[in-house]
């Protein structure tokens, strides 16, 4: 079961990496990052099941990870709204104020 969970989370992480590398739209990037965070959470829960399941350390970690992901989505989407208002689009390549 542990190996199956680790295999699944590895594949999901690779899918998220593909999304982050190939997408240019900010919302798509956020979707890919959420996929990677969920892959990490599956790992945490699988190891919590394997080592001292009664202590719940891994599950606590995954719960806090879900909370952090929710914060990240809220702040990220607020930033996307602000960028859309200022630059007129959500493509990450149009934000080039610091380009020399």
């Amino acid at each position, binding site marked *: 079961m542990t190996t199956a969970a680790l295999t699944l989370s590895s594949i999901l992480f690779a899918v998220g990496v593909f999304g982050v590398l190939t997408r240019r739209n900010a*919302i798509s990037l956020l979707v890919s990052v959420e*996929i990677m965070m969920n892959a990490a959470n599956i790992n945490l829960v699988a190891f919590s099941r394997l080592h001292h399941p009664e202590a719940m350390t891994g599950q606590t970690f995954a719960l806090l990870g879900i909370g952090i992901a929710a914060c990240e989505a809220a702040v990220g989407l607020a930033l996307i709204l602000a960028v859309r208002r200022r630059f007129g689009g959500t493509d990450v390549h149009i934000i080039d104020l610091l380009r020399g």
Partner: protein
Amino acid sequence: MSAQELLFAGFGVVAIAGALYSVVTRSLLRAIIGLGAFLTAVAGEFYLLAADLLAVVQVFVYVGGVVVLMLFALMLTASGARHPLAAIDRPRSGAVLACVIGGGLVWASWTVDFAEAPPAPDDAVGALGRALLGAQLGPFEVMGVILLASVVTALSIVRRERP
């Protein structure tokens, strides 16, 4: 193959299919719907890994919160397009790099011989609650402060500046 392993494989296939669909489709709306299917399947995996409360939290926070938030953000930024589309940049090199990373991780997880998992505690939800209000109380409290800070940050970012 037991029923639990069969369900685990089924949820895994749904999760991978949803994740793949949401990274390869050009329509942003469909990407978010695919993310919803993926997150629901991951909730099923949590349940099968004896994390009952996490499965419920996953459905409430992710499927009910983050996906709806993303739909709202898409609605507010779509600028009148009926089907907002997003380009895919250099898919070949991205696929090669993702396959290298994923293959390495799968290889690493297959080389380790894990012990058989001990039986799950009967009262998993109760044990998690005792852990959150006992040994893990500090991180739990800090999490609340971070949530508050992120709400204030998000509001102050999207607020229109007065002239």
